[in-house]
């Protein structure tokens, strides 16, 4: 427990970031990879200024001597004099605004794109960048401050990119940066205090590693830790010097340094850290003249703790304990000599100062934007095993408590994220089940009746009058018959489109979407959509329902953009059909009487006038006496068989025979067909004649009567064939057509359900087939004639052709020619 360190939060920046560079001069400079550099005053503990650059900042370096700041940005390297920084206005208000400084092109001193790292060695500025084929380390001579022009280029070193690591580098280019580091020989006379990023190395090790020439020229040596794991070096000012590889870590290098080296006490080993926690020490242990041994220690990655690694145990020659400097994702708990400092989530770290009592102070930035001063415990330097004095106990308990708090905070965040992930998975499971269910229905059993789908829609039509306008509403009910919950993210889509083109020639389909929350098994969702007003109704009309699921709510917007179709899954449900029978308004017998005088149903004054006008037109049309009709014949035996359940027991079938007509009409008008039902006051039908009003205002007469065919035709039969004739009469041809279609469709549906009875069809064969054929041939002739006259006949007017065709149609639909459905 003696490995406690004091963490003091200096300020909070309130951002969270993955990577960050931190430099300490008189002030603290930090950048988070965005366009901004923050200047923080350590003494006043306040943000001094924010410097805005034209692009993302890659690296920055401070020149203490000349009081300048160099910043590598997208388009090159900028130089900013620290004296020119705006200072906070000296006002009494403590919360004065932090001054911003915008950097423009005049501060650009080196125009080079893609500079990744900077290093300042005396009066030479080095920058590292990556071209297509090589890493380029270029030297520039710093010009005097008075002439802030472009800097003179002094040549460059290059190291070819290793082919297989190329992709890796470009992918992660934005996140990771290579590391630059400068090593001086202790024998060389240079400035007494070395800035950060520089270290003084013991002369023998220096000579062994970098050669006699570098030592003789007293040249500093530049180290590059590249992203492919290579550790390269070059003597800074030796003629003909080249970048050479010292070692390869085989993982991106995140730190190069040395065990605490100062001028008086030069470092005895170099340390390099890899991203995945590999630590390489370079010492002259088994020195001799043949070269330093490289001792490597491996550690695992667990998170982002700050750790201390005692190098004296790894290398018997060294005695100094060095900080396992940690950037993001640093090494962790494997070998026995690694001590965790229990400081979590530090993403950038720099050496701050040496206290008077020999404590090491570090400056760290946590991933949530807290700038922290971390004071290492003194005991560490002595191997970390000494008993702390009792006065320190109280403090260390406080430290333990704060560490516990820290760990608790971290664990609770982790817990929350795990919980939300589980929930998301559960949700996804439901979605998958539902889509599987609906898809197998669609793929496997396409012929199965619609009712078999566990999740389906059915609908009811109803007329409502609003603002003196009649409009048709469709009430859709989504029935969740499955055992799964339809949770948040599902949307019910309803598309209504008329089967025939509207008179204007445009297909006017309508879409409605209803997002909904939880729909548990067995629950129903009711929605109501307006289909049309009475005037512009176009039936039959197909209403298709589908369910859509959007992943964006579940996974977040970014993840969704990579999914196909924008993260939307669409599952079709069933398709409903609204036909003429659904939009009829049945008139009571009293109304029907009134209707006989072709008076409209409405009684309001405005409508009366309109109705009057309409009726005038109608009279004119009626003057031509155009009453259209169509007939459908169905075997009454079939009807009896099929409509039985609604009528009652089978034994009654004979007794209720006159009721077949009524029950047929009842079935046609009131039963749900194709999932759609007509809503309205259920009036009991008493007579087999029904008057109804079509949406366009015309009256339709629907008559059903039972006819004995055998008597009628006087054909010899063993058993009389009784049929039901449904006659549709109206003054509007369109109504007749629509009604005929609707009735026929329903009867056809009925037929599909009926069991086969081959015997009755055989009986039919003898029955006036010949006659029917003759009639058909006659009609065909008529039809052909009218077509020929249409194409060739100049003398025949269009009206004549039309009336001819109409004639044929009416005869086809009429009583004589209609086919019998058995």
């Amino acid at each position: 427990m003696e490995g406690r360190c004091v963490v003091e939060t200096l300020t909070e920046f309130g951002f969270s970031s993955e990577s960050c560079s931190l430099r300490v001069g008189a002030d603290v400079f930090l950048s988070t990879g965005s366009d901004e550099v923050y200047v923080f005053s350590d003494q006043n503990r306040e943000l001094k200024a924010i410097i805005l650059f034209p692009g993302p900042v890659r690296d920055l370096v401070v020149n203490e001597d000349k009081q300048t700041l160099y910043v590598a940005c997208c388009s090159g390297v900028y130089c900013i004099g620290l004296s020119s920084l705006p200072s906070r206005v000296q006002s009494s208000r403590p919360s004065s605004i932090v001054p911003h400084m915008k950097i423009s092109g005049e501060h650009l001193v080196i125009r080079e794109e893609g500079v990744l790292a900077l290093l300042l060695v005396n009066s030479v500025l080095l920058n590292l960048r990556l071209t297509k084929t090589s890493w380029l380390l270029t030297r520039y001579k710093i010009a005097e401050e008075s002439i802030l022009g472009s800097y003179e280029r002094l040549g460059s070193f290059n190291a070819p990119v290793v082919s297989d690591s190329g992709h890796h580098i470009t992918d992660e280019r934005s996140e990771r940066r290579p590391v630059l580091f400068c090593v001086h020989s202790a024998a060389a006379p240079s400035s007494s205090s070395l800035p950060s990023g520089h270290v003084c190395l013991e002369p023998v090790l220096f000579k062994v590693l970098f050669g006699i020439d570098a030592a003789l020229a007293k040249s500093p040596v530049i180290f590059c830790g590249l992203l492919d794991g290579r550790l390269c070096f070059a003597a800074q000012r030796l003629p003909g010097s080249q970048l050479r590889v010292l070692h390869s870590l085989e993982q991106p290098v995140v730190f190069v340094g040395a065990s605490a080296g100062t001028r008086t006490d030069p470092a005895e080993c170099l340390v390099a850290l890899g991203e995945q926690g590999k630590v390489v020490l370079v010492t002259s242990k088994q020195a001799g003249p043949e070269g330093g041994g490289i001792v490597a220690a491996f550690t695992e990655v667990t998170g982002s703790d700050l750790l201390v690694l005692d190098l004296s145990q790894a290398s018997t020659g060294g005695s100094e304990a060095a900080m396992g400097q940690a950037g993001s994702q640093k090494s962790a708990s494997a070998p026995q000599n690694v001590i965790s400092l229990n400081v979590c989530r530090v993403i950038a770290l720099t050496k701050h100062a040496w206290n008077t009592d020999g404590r090491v102070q570090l400056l760290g930035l946590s991933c949530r934007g807290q700038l922290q001063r971390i004071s290492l415990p003194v005991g560490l330097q002595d191997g970390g095993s000494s008993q702390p004095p009792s006065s320190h106990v109280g403090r260390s308990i406080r430290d333990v408590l704060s560490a516990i708090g820290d760990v608790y905070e971290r664990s609770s965040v982790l817990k929350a994220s795990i919980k939300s992930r589980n929930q998301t998975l559960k949700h996804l499971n439901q979605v998958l089940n539902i889509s599987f269910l609906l898809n197998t229905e669609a793929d496997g059993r396409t012929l199965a009746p619609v009712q078999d789908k566990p999740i389906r829609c059915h609908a009811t039509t109803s007329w409502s009058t609003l603002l003196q306008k009649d409009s048709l509403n469709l009430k859709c009910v989504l029935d969740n018959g499955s055992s799964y919950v339809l949770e948040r993210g599902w949307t019910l889509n309803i598309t209504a489109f008329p089967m025939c083109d509207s008179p204007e020639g445009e297909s006017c389909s309508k879409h409605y979407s209803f997002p909904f929350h939880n729909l548990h098994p067995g629950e129903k969702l009711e929605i109501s959509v307006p289909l049309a007003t009475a005037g512009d109704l176009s039936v039959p009309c197909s209403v298709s329902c589908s369910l859509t699921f959007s992943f964006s709510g579940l996974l977040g917007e970014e993840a969704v953009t990579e999914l196909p179709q924008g993260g939307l899954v669409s599952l079709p449900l069933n398709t409903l059909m609204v036909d003429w029978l659904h939009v009829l308004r049945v008139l009571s017998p009293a109304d029907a009487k009134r209707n006989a005088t072709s008076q409209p149903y409405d009684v309001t004054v405005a409508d009366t006038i309109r109705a009057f006008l309409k009726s005038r037109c109608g009279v004119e049309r009626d003057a031509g006496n155009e009453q259209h009709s169509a007939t459908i014949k169905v075997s009454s035996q079939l009807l009896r068989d099929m409509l039985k359940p609604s009528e009652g027991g089978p034994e009654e079938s004979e007794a209720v025979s006159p009721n077949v007509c009524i029950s047929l009409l009842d079935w046609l008008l009131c039963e749900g067909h194709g999932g759609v039902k007509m809503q309205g006051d259920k009036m009991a039908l008493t007579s087999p004649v029904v008057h109804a009003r079509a949406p366009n205002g015309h009256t339709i007469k629907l008559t059903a009567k039972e006819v004995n065919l055998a008597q009628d035709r006087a054909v010899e039969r063993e058993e009389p064939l009784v049929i039901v004739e449904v006659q549709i009469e109206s003054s509007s041809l369109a109504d007749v057509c629509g009604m005929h279609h609707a009735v026929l469709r329903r009867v056809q549906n009925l037929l599909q359900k009926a069991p086969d009875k081959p015997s009755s069809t055989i009986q039919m064969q003898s029955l006036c087939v010949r006659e029917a054929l003759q009639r058909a041939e006659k009609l065909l002739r008529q039809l052909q004639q009218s077509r020929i006259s249409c194409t060739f006949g100049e003398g025949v007017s269009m009206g004549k052709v039309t009336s001819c065709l109409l004639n044929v149609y009416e005869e086809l639909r009429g009583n004589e020619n209609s086919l019998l459905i058995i």
Partner: protein
Amino acid sequence: MSNERQQSPSKLSDRWIQENNELVNKWKNREPSSRDQNHAILLLSSEFHKLLRKIQGLPLLEDHTRLELCVVYNVCLLSIALSQMSEAEMLLTQTMERVLQMTSVEPMASSPPEFWRTVVTSVENRPFQSSVQNLLCVRWAICLANCTLEAIEGLQGEFSSLSAGLQQDISEARRMSSNVPLLVMEPRKLLELLQICTLITQGAERLNEGGSSAALTGLQAASSLPAPRTLVAYTHLLSGSCLAHTGRPQMALQCFRKAVETDFLCVCALYQSVLIFRCLGNTQAEIQMLRLLHSTLMLPSTSEPFTASDQIFSVSVLLRSQALRSLLFVPTALGVLHSLAQKCVLHSRVSEGVECYLDLLAAIRSEEHSVRSEDSHLPRLPELYLEAATSLLMAERPVDCMTLCDEVIATTAELLPERVVLEEPEEGVEESAMCAEGEQDRVAMLFWTGAAYLLQGHCCGHLQDWKQAVAHYTRCINLLVKVRVKEKGGQPQVPTPDVCNEKRADLQILQRMKGLSLAGRGISFAQTDQLRHAQRNLQLSLHAFPENVGARLWCGEVLWRLDRKREAAAIWEKTWNISIRSAENIPVYLREPQSGPMLDSAELRRRIRELDSS
């Protein structure tokens, strides 16, 4: 309706012409700062590419062909300036295919020269003929930049007819100057450049193949062409090289002089003159030339030779032939300074030499000299130090010499090996580079340290501090005895003179250094009247390195003093009769010291005569 359709592209083409001209004018009116040139070209190139994509979106029609070809010309020149030859070539071929399609000539899948001939004939007497000719110039430039001289020869006929065609074009352009797309570089200027650059490249290639006289005629014709100064200087330079190859060094020197007169920054001519003087053995002239070369190289403007501000690309893009490049090679300033220093020291201009060496060391230790990989043929830094130290000793500055030697000794101090075995290099087998390098470094380090001690001994001798001198010589000897020699298949042993053959440079150095240090110690003993020790040391010295004249004479002297006068006389006689091999390749610090106590040969002869007469 049809009227409208015809009008819209022509209006669009007006807009495109305007856009093109704005870009060209922006380029021509930019601020001439050489550093940003590349960046500016890059930007301009992308703008032009955008424009070209717009234009090529339409099928090629007769009325805007000229515009498209002009833009292609501009784009290609910018690509060449950015050294993107293959892109320029591809664009050129595509454009010509479009032109052929428009003129409804079937593009044949034939060789490039045939293809171009088809193009040129198909556009004859068309309004855009001149634009196609401009593109032919571009084609020429690409061939030249790619160093494919055969391709240029294949189209020689078309190229030579270009200049007449371009002449016409100028007058035509003046006539309708209002609505003409501008070009980033005058085709006329480009053609001039191409002509002279082609002649220069051809000359260099021929010279490389040994056809000096053929090359000479071409180059002399080229020297009268109108061209930038730099290029004219090159023609003179190459003519000079041809003459030097055919054994006419004086005429060659004349040519080099002309080259420098034409362009005073033509450093390669200076360097070639240095080489000629070196061949002629005219050391004084060589030293002068080296001095001139060094001062020219130190001028700030030589680092970036041809960037005329109005040209879009530098001539060096067109001069890429390997043969030419080797002719234009110039060592770096540091290299020149080193050879200058060496020459001065070796040819009795010691004080100048010392200055040069000190300049050289100062340059290396300064922060701001530029590091170039071409500097790698400078000697290793310890050797430079030792050479400088020797020059200081020769200039009678023994204290400074001692300081430099101290520095070398201090640097190598902790790294000296306990024992070194020199193995005979095995022929045909390449050792792994790293291992050999490490081994060589250790041996070299030992030799450097030894030489430093030797020089310190000489210094002490110079200062008449004999006791100290003996100490330094002894350190040197102690180092050298650590070296064992291993014969092939044998055991490591102490080297003897008979194993020292010509091929083993390291052994020669070892024996020479041993001989010199033993001789030095012997002479020092002689000076302090320790004649027995002196005699043994001198004998051993002669055993290791028999050609040491000083040691022989001193050996005789010691014998004389020991009253063995007959033996002494015999040794002296023999010394005057042996022939000395030239020491040109021996490092200057391993030569016999010129500064120690000397014996006068005339005096010795007089003594012999006296001995004989007595």
